[in-house]
């Protein structure tokens, strides 16, 4: 490990020069000759019956090439994991983002004008906007064909005997916590270009995070259109932010496909910022009732959680976030008895999707807030309570997670030390400290039948390498991490590695950039392929140099004998000798890595990930009792990452995740009133700016994960998981009030202070 030349180094992101010079092409920048522009007409009401839909005037507008409605879509074609979402709606609309019609025209402006010429008459219907109302017996059904508004997804995890543990606990707390809708706010909005060739094969320019799964979705769609056995090629433009927003395929993409098919032209749809706010799928809001118990020494005895999630009108991956919430609920700290029951409920609100952390931040907010309440009741310092119960290597958790490397205790100690916890805690002077920990998947997550990633490596005649990986880069730096791993294994400078990661015609399959899995899974795939190509190089060079391949090594692009330093050849020269000869060959290698993790069984148990990421965040805040404003004085973010392949990019994930978490904790909220988004713009929905950056210290704790590439684990999501409860706990220490519903606004703090003083 000590001799690493590329891995473990602060290496700048390899696509940064393209981006910093404005040369990187995002989906907004893709232009194809003859391309048309698509625009979508959305419902004016969150719940209504469409009485009349007349597109005739729009069709006549010069420049309009096609107008489509539900009748142009294949009947019964539905998208979403429950197949409950027709890409164009007819009959009834169920949410304000329901797509009713779409236009393709020669310019975006003409398309927009055409939308205004489409005549729609609605009969407005009363809606249900509160999941608790929607759950009631006899509530109006959002989907008439369903028997209940509660999704048929019975999330239920039972470990041990919670009722018995309640009897035996020395201290018990119970409370309810809630979280809000927040949205990704990718700076680059959603978009695509759909393009058919003469054989009806589809090329989709996309910014998806799941090229292989999207390919599968679009093949299915083409089948539904009657285009059997067609090819679908996904080409990803440079992706202007992901954060989970692009883990599904969306109505607009199918609409672009339909318009392209109708017009026989490439059709581009780019969301406006307004659409990006109301027509993409946010993080789901939750209502969580949680109860915790411990014995007289502070050892946790049980955790009991009931949760309601507002699913919105249709079903995307948001509905499956309880599967990841189970992870902290069952396994954050040692807790022998666990019960978790979650219900996702249809409403006439916007439907939800994945967002960085995939449910973990919501669950961890409830768990870590509740733990502070328990510590207070038991008379134990909250950090001490976490030390007592901290996870350890070798543990098998109640949900059957096999904990391999685990630096949770080290992370807690970093917080203790760097926050000066002992000095700062419990001063009751308007300043306070708080902390929270996290567990997340760090070695893939077996959500699908495969959690794999493929890599192909091809050597050229000059000693340079092309690496074809299925793993997408959404800005996090997987391109660079993969290049580092390949460069390290082969023994060449990173400049000699070219990573191709954006085209399903040439890149192997990958399940997607989700679950903080890319460094681990794609990294292991790259490692496997690089080892194979290195073997081939040494084998061939052995013949050229007349040496045993076992005695050869490669450094800085030179192949040399470790026994006889005289014997060496530049890698490129060796490759050319291997190539340009009778019976010569080009060196290529492939590797498919699928981690040895498990799908959950019927009881939602099983070792979801090969390894688990840990961390602890500690915060010092100052709260102004007059204004309710919270100022973060110090923020410590300690993360167990296995091995830092690239500390520069890693710290970037911690800073970026941390600030997103601070936005989630202290300000961001999508305000929906009766199904309508009231603040769908950057003026009213404020994401943190440069002025909101607190003093933040990223702390990297290395634990050397045995199954990780060079010992690494995932870090993409963890940075924002414990932020909100750490801040809430610090505020409680500062002023003695606990805010239980996010975001923690000055108004809520003032109201809580007022209530406390009464």
């Amino acid at each position, binding site marked *: 490990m000590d001799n690493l030349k590329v891995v473990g180094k*602060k290496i*700048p*992101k390899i*696509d*940064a*020069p*393209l*981006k*910093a*010079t*404005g*040369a*990187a*092409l*995002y989906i*907004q*920048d893709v232009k194809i000759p003859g391309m048309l522009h698509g625009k979508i007409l959305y419902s004016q009401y969150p719940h209504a019956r469409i009485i009349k839909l007349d597109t005739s005037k729009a069709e006549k507008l010069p420049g309009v090439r096609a107008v489509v409605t539900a009748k142009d879509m294949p009947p019964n074609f539905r998208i979403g994991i429950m197949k409950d979402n027709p890409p164009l709606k007819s009959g009834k609309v169920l949410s304000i983002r329901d797509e009713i019609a779409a236009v393709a025209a020669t310019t975006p402006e003409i398309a927009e004008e055409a939308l205004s010429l489409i005549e729609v008459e609605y009969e407005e219907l009363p809606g249900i906007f509160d999941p608790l109302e929607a759950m009631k017996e006899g509530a109006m059904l959002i989907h008439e064909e369903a028997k209940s508004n509660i999704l048929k997804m019975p999330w239920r995890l039972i470990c041990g005997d919670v009722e018995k543990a309640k009897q035996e606990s020395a201290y018990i707390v119970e409370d309810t916590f809630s979280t809000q809708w927040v949205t*990704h*706010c*990718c*700076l*680059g*909005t959603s978009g695509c270009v759909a393009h058919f060739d003469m054989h009806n094969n589809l090329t989709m320019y996309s910014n998806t995070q799941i090229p292989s799964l999207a390919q599968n979705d679009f093949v299915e769609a083409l089948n539904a259109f009657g285009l059997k056995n067609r090819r679908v090629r996904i080409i990803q433009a*440079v*992706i*202007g*932010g*992901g*954060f989970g927003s692009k883990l599904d395929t969306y109505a607009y993409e199918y609409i672009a496909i339909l318009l392209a098919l109708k017009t026989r032209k490439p059709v581009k749809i780019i969301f*406006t*910022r307004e659409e990006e706010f109301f027509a993409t799928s946010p993080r789901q809001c939750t209502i969580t009732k949680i109860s915790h118990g411990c014995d007289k020494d502070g050892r946790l005895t049980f955790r009991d959680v009931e949760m309601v999630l507002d699913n919105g009108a249709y079903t995307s991956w948001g509905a499956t976030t309880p599967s990841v919430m189970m992870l902290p609920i069952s396994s954050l700290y040692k807790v022998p008895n666990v019960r978790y029951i979650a219900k996702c409920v249809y409403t006439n609100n916007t439907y939800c999707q994945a967002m960085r952390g995939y449910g973990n931040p919501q669950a961890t907010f409830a768990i870590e807030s509740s733990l502070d309440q328990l510590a207070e009741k038991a008379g134990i310092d909250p950090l001490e309570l976490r030390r007592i119960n901290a996870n350890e290597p070798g543990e098998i958790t109640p949900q059957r997670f096999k904990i391999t490397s685990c630096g949770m205790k080290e992370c807690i100690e970093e917080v203790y030390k760097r926050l000066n916890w002992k000095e700062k805690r419990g001063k009751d002077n308007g300043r306070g400290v708080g902390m929270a920990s996290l567990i997340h998947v760090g070695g893939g997550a077996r959500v699908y039948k495969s959690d794999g990633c493929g890599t192909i490596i091809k050597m050229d005649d000059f000693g340079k390498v092309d690496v074809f990986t299925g793993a997408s880069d*959404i*800005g*996090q*730096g997987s391109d660079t991490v993969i290049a580092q791993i390949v460069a390290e294994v082969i023994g060449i400078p990173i400049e000699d590695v070219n990573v191709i990661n954006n085209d399903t015609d040439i890149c192997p399959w990958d399940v997607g950039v989700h679950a903080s899995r890319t460094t681990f899974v794609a990294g292991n795939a790259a490692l496997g392929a690089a080892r194979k190509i290195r073997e081939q190089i040494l084998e061939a060079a052995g013949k050229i140099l007349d040496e045993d391949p076992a005695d050869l090594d490669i450094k800085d692009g030179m192949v040399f004998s470790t026994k006889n330093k005289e014997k060496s050849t530049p890698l490129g020269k060796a490759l050319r000798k291997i190539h340009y000869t009778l019976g010569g060959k080009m060196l290529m290698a492939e590797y498919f890595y699928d981690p040895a993790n498990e799908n959950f069984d019927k009881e939602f148990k099983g070792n979801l990930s090969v390894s688990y990421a840990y961390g602890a965040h500690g915060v010092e805040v100052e709260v102004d009792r007059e204004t309710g404003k919270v100022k973060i004085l110090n923020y410590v973010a300690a993360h167990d990452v296995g091995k830092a392949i690239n500390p*520069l*990019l890693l*710290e*970037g994930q911690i*800073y*970026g*995740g*941390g*600030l*997103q978490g601070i936005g989630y904790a202290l300000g961001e909220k999508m305000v929906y009133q009766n199904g309508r988004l009231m603040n769908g*713009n*950057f*003026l009213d929905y404020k*994401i*943190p*700016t*440069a*002025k909101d*950056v607190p003093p*933040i210290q990223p702390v990297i704790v290395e634990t050397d994960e045995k199954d990780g590439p060079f010992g690494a684990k995932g870090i993409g999501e963890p940075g924002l998981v414990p932020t909100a409860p750490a801040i809430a706990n610090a505020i409680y220490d500062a002023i003695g009030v606990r805010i239980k519903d996010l975001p923690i606004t000055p108004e809520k703090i003032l109201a809580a202070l007022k209530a406390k003083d009464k």
Partner: protein
Amino acid sequence: MKKEITFNLNNEETTVEVDPKWTLLYLLREVLNLTGTKEGCGYGECGACTVIIDGKAVNSCIFPVLEAEGKNIITIEGLAKDGQMHPLQKAFIEKGAVQCGFCTPGMIMSAKALLDEKKNPTDEDIKEAIEGNLCRCTGYVMIIDAIKSVAAGR
């Protein structure tokens, strides 16, 4: 009715016919194919479209195109000289200030306008200068570091 305007764009006199309804951003991206300048919101709130006009950082998405007449305009494409990147571009790359990169061109233009105006900006100056440039990936820390390093290195 189209109208002809002349201005200096990235050090070159440029004359072009424009529709008075256009924004400067539209002209840059859709007509002149200078797609390095990004549109993140279209209403002057995210800063992705920032260009420098007569020394000031401006949101080109709300800048009426006719007002470009006679101005001196620099876009991200105008920063590199003789194939050498501007020190700010190099610093952004080396300090890890670039993730998804969509905000990067606008961010760099705001930073340039600041450094052209102030020799030794404070942290507060830097934060003030890029407050209107939203970034969702980096948490701004490395962006601020990058700008500071350029200021310190002059």
